[in-house]
């Protein structure tokens, strides 16, 4: 085993000097959406990316999942260079985007109809998969809502179902793009705890893009602050609050200090 392979197994996600321009004209003009991204994420680490809107956070997500290829540099995920959509990740967005003609259960099962090895077993093992989906729904507080249609659920419940859909195929990496942005403050805090519990239990990697600083500090191991276009990481802040974290922690001075410090960095970026 070479030295690099060893490095790769240690770091689950490894961005090495990554630049991205959205098309060739922009590349010729040296106009990059994100630039000089260097990032190492350990196995099972929960990272959050915060920054002003339009700073390339979503671009970063597309790079990580292989939906976009970098113009320069390379990206390794799980020891392999990313050269197309990874099948080991799940995604959820601000809009739950559930399919209205499918029940909640069938919505959650959708990834299993697409990704191998589940796809070829889907008909034979349907009952088993359904049991698994029902179990997962129950763990986020949606027990008994399997047969309801998405439009019969509240916004928070739809978002829970959307996170279940991202997790049903047991991905090694969960990517969340402002998943709680459209929810009210109370529902949002409830869902923080749901996500915390799922992550504690299953130990997948999480990349959370958000502009809620309290959310990032409460949930993540490491918070990265991104500058506005072209996006680059300007601050890396390790969150050393002890785990397991309770919502109470958000009212402690230590928590407020970190949030305040990050807020200072964002303020500095906005002024520059």
């Amino acid at each position: 085993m070479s030295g690099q392979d060893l490095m790769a197994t240690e770091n689950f996600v490894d961005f090495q000097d990554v630049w991205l321009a959205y098309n060739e004209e922009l590349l010729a003009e040296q106009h990059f959406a994100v630039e000089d991204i260097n990032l190492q994420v350990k196995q099972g680490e929960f990272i959050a990316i915060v920054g002003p809107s339009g700073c390339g956070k979503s671009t970063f997500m597309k790079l990580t999942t292989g939906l976009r290829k970098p113009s320069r540099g390379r990206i390794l995920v799980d020891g392999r260079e990313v050269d197309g959509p990874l099948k080991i990740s799940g995604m959820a967005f601000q809009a739950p985007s559930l399919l209205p003609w499918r029940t909640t259960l069938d919505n959650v099962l959708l990834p299993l109809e697409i990704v191998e090895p589940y796809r070829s077993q889907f008909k034979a093992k349907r009952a088993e998969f359904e049991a698994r989906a029902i179990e997962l729904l129950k763990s986020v507080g949606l027990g008994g809502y399997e047969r309801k249609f998405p439009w019969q659920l509240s916004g928070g419940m739809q978002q829970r179902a959307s996170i279940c859909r991202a997790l049903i195929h047991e991905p090694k990496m969960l990517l969340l793009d402002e998943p709680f942005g459209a929810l009210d403050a109370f529902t949002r805090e409830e869902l923080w705890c749901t996500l915390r519990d799922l992550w504690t239990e299953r130990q997948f990697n999480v990349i959370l893009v958000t502009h809620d600083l309290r959310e990032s500090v409460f949930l993540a191991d490491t918070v990265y602050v991104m500058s506005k276009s072209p996006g680059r990481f300007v601050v890396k802040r390790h969150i050393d609050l002890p785990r397991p974290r309770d919502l109470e922690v958000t009212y402690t001075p230590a928590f407020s200090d970190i949030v305040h410090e990050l807020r200072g960095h964002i303020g500095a970026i906005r002024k520059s």
Partner: protein
Amino acid sequence: MKQKTLERWAPWGLLVLTLVLWQTVCSAFQVSEFIFPSPWRIAQQTFEFKAVIAAHAWRTFWVTMAGFGIAIVVGVLLGFVIGSSRLAYAAVYPLMTGFNALPKAAFVPILVVWFGIGVGPAILTAFLISFFPIMVNIATGLATLEPELEDVLRVLGAKRWDVLIKVGLPRSMPYFFGSLKVAITLAFVGTTVSEMTAANEGIGYLLISAGSAMQMGLAFSGLVVVGAMAMVMYELFSYIENHTTAWAHRGSQEV
């Protein structure tokens, strides 16, 4: 509940009201039946010529359904192609819009040259006039997929085809059924217009011959029959629409 019953009977009430008013005007001013026949006169003539009208109506009906059937097949296929490929959309759409702007009645003489007098021109006119809304609606349903949803699936390694089958097609079904309602009424227009100049049978032919024989009551009953057939078919597709894609109409059903 009371509001709902009222809504259901409202169109019938309006129909009766219109007929009564029409009859009153015709009787009161003694309008000549060769100019503007009264509803009663139309009813009498419809009854008198019921066998003839039925034969012509049947012809118009099956010809329309044949044209409409072709329109569904062609409309869905074309819509699928241009809705699933941006290049095809860019290439086909402007031409189709131009084509749709042409009056379809203008095609009838050309179709007569190619296919002769009879069912050929009528079926094709019905088809030409009714495939466009079907195509546009299928294409719109496919082309307006939410990008986030596409990303969710592509991250899992879904191919374009998977996305089309799992999301695109079911998503465009309400658009499709919606377009059938519009298309079926257009198809009746196409058939009737074509029959007026290029057939010896059908309601369109009946209208022309009744008109030239000054049988105004009969001409009007021809119109009534076409209208009734189109309305029945419209309601049929509306019923199918509501019972297959209820998820898209939940707002109106909950009221």
